[in-house]
């Protein structure tokens, strides 16, 4: 498991029913691309997050496939519909099999 992986998500605390809100996510991860070389000229093996999924109450918002060309600490911004109060769930899948999860609740104002 990659070290120091910490997901961070910014979701408004409340929204009006039917609103479209902006969600920002960032996860600290070195995203080793697999083309870099170390001091001895050996290729450093690839180690990235290859998939990111965001769901709201079990329904999918966005499902992103990541390639090595995504920067260190992958950042995503996207928009979601909020028809009712509920919970956002965010999941990141690492090359090494680790799964990082976080969730955020939202209220209807």
């Amino acid at each position: 498991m990659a070290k120091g992986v910490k997901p961070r998500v910014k979701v408004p605390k409340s929204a009006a029913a039917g609103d479209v809100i902006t969600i920002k996510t960032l996860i600290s991860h070195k995203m080793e691309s697999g083309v870099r070389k170390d001091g001895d000229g050996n290729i450093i093996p690839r180690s990235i997050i290859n998939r990111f999924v965001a769901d709201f109450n079990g329904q999918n918002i966005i499902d992103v496939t990541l390639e090595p060309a995504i920067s260190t600490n992958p950042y995503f911004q996207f928009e979601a519909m909020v028809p009712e109060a509920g919970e956002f769930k965010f999941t990141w899948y690492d090359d090494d099999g680790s799964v990082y999860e976080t969730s955020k609740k939202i209220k209807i104002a």
Partner: protein
Amino acid sequence: MEFTRRNILALGSGAFAAASFAGMPAFASKTDDAIAAFTGGASVTEGGIDLTAPEIAENGNTVPVSVSAPGAVSIMLLATGNPTPAVATFNFGPMAGTRSGATRIRLAKTQDVVAVAKMADGSFRTAGATVKVTIGGCGG
């Protein structure tokens, strides 16, 4: 044969020219292959999709890119000049508010960034933007 300074220079520039000529078509076809794999060989039309990328990126390690295509089912991002052109594919689910997304990408050198969107009716749209990169972002 004695290696004079002139000989070595001539050899070096020849090798460099050969390498750059060999490199260009390979990258272009890799991008085309990636697009063909995404579209299944369907024709791709320009427009109907917005790709926002900076004209000049000082640091190729993190280039902010955003893409938006109303009515899209999924959007693929490609960097034509990277060792591997694929960057990311956004697939939108039923709860997506808008068909848009933003992220940060690595660019190895000055190149075109291309977005291809699959629309709900099965057609494909594309848009491109040229980004000038001062410091490359792929290491190696």
